[in-house]
Every structure is written in structure tokens, then in C-alpha cells.
């Protein structure tokens, strides 16, 4: 599946050729990095609150109401620019172990988020005010940090393998 010519065909689409041959590539790359740092930094604030390390004066929901929209906005920009970069060298990227790790870790981070939501529904309604946080929430916060740091490492390592 990873050897399929579909990935090669992506590289010959009009859009991929436009991005790859012009200053759009560095522009997308820098916007990708910028949005990722903003996304991870905002997520860091939320995850550290979950872990009980920072901003304990606020209920988790006060912080998530403030920060989560920025996390999602930055994530959306990172996905769009990331896809733009990906299609310029799709067939090489899908075979790149660093890229494969990055995707797996991102999937794991998504599953962790899903577990977080399911767990949040089952806890008492005001769990987000409790100090200390329930253990399940502390673990999910720390896991999110580690997984996303791993995603970043995988993304950065990709460029060293090609």
C-alpha cells in the first residue's frame, strides 16, 4: 500500500508542483512550524493543569475555554500546511520511518484525547475543580505532553532522513 503509485501521483498534481517549485514551500514550512509551536504551547498549559503542575487556581474548564480554540485553530493551520508539504514528496514520506512514527504517535495522541473525554464524562461533574486532580486525568495530561513532543521529534527527524 505504501509502495502504491497513488503517492507518486500526488507529487505530480498541479498543487504539489506549484508548492514544490516556488517560495510557497518555505512559506508553508515556516507556517507549519509556527502553528505547531503555538498549538503545543497552548496545549502545554492545559496539560500541565491536568497534571496538577501549573495554574491550579483555575478550574480546568476556565482554561480550556480560553485556550482550546487557539489549540484547534493552530492545529488546523498545521494540518493544511502539513498536507501541502507532504504532497510535494508523498512517495518518499510514506516510506520514511520518522514520518511513520510521527503518524503513529499522532494517532496515539488522538486516542489519548478520546480517552480523556470519555473519562471526563464518567467522573463527578466538578472534577475539573478538584485538587489534586484525579489520577486518570493527571496521567492523560502527561501522556499528551509526551506524545506530542514525540510527534515533534518525528517531524523534525524526517528532514534528516531524506
Amino acid at each position, binding site marked *: 500500500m505504501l509502495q502504491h503509485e497513488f503517492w507518486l501521483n500526488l507529487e505530480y498534481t498541479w498543487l504539489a508542483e506549484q508548492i514544490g517549485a516556488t517560495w510557497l514551500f518555505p512559506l508553508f*514550512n515556516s507556517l507549519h*512550524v509556527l502553528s505547531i*509551536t503555538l498549538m503545543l*504551547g497552548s496545549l*502545554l498549559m492545559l496539560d500541565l493543569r491536568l497534571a496538577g503542575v501549573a495554574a491550579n487556581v483555575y478550574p480546568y474548564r476556565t482554561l480550556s475555554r480560553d485556550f482550546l480554540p487557539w489549540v484547534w485553530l493552530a492545529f488546523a493551520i498545521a494540518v493544511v500546511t502539513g498536507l501541502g508539504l507532504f504532497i510535494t514528496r508523498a512517495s518518499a514520506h510514506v516510506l520514511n520511518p520518522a514520518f511513520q512514527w510521527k503518524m503513529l504517535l499522532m494517532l496515539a495522541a488522538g486516542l489519548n484525547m478520546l480517552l480523556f473525554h470519555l473519562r471526563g464524562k464518567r467522573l463527578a461533574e466538578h472534577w475539573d475543580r478538584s485538587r489534586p486532580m484525579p489520577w486518570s486525568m493527571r496521567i492523560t495530561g502527561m501522556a499528551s505532553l509526551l506524545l506530542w513532543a514525540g510527534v515533534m521529534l518525528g517531524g523534525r527527524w524526517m528532514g*534528516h532522513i531524506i
Partner: protein
Amino acid sequence: MTELSIQLLSTVPGLPPVLQTVHLLGLAMLMASAVMMDLRLLSLAGRGQQVQEMLQRLFPWVFWALPIMLVSGLPFLLARPQRYLNNPVFAYKAAFLCLALIVTFLLWLGFRRGVTQQRGWPIKALALVSLVAWVMTAMSGRWIAYADYLFWPG
């Protein structure tokens, strides 16, 4: 120092991407904290939180990120000084960084004196300059590798 940096970066397996990731994680700490403070001062984000309390909480992250950025970035500069010092984009990065540091320091002074509480126009202006300066520092950092797109090698 140059020899040591070249030695480390070329012999320790995986050191360049790991150091660059540390640089990026430091950037995430710094950017999100600085940008969130700036957006809060401009009333664009974090309205559920008190200004002074938020600044007190986030300033240390900016200040702690700076030595991390320096330690993880300096080996690359030392290993290939001519790649950076002859690069006009690196000059832009240095200039934006200086501006960002100065403005952040001024905001910190304002915070210490309680001026940030009222958020008058000078504070808002500083917050806007800080926001632009940090974003441009990060952007020009990435563009160092792409200087050829901007300045045709002659």
C-alpha cells in the same frame, strides 16, 4: 568551541534532530506564553483570567525558555558560523530577536510596576509589537535554510 560542536553534531547519533526538537519545544514554551500574554493584553484571548495573575504565571516560562533556546541553538551556529553569519535571513532573525527581547523586557517592567493592569495604549502597543516581533523571529529562524528563495545567490 567550533571543533567541539562539529565533533558532537557529527558523531553523536541523532543529536542534530534531538537538539532541534529541544529548540522547537523551547520555542513552543516561549511562543505560546508570549503570544497568550500579548493576546490577553490586547483583550483577544484568555478573558476568563486576570491580567496580572496570568502574566505572573507565564513570564517565568518565557524566561526559562530563553536559556533552553540558546543552549540548543548555539551548537549549530558554532559548528557552521559562515552558514549563519553570511546569511541575510539570520541577520533578520537576530534583529527581530533583539526587538522581541527589548519589548518583552519593557512589558515585564510594566508588569512589575502594575501598569499592565489598566492596559493603556502604550501597553497595548508594546503587546502588538511583541507579538509581531516573536512571530517574525520564529519565521525567520525557519527561513534561514531557505535564504536562496529570498536572496538569489549571485
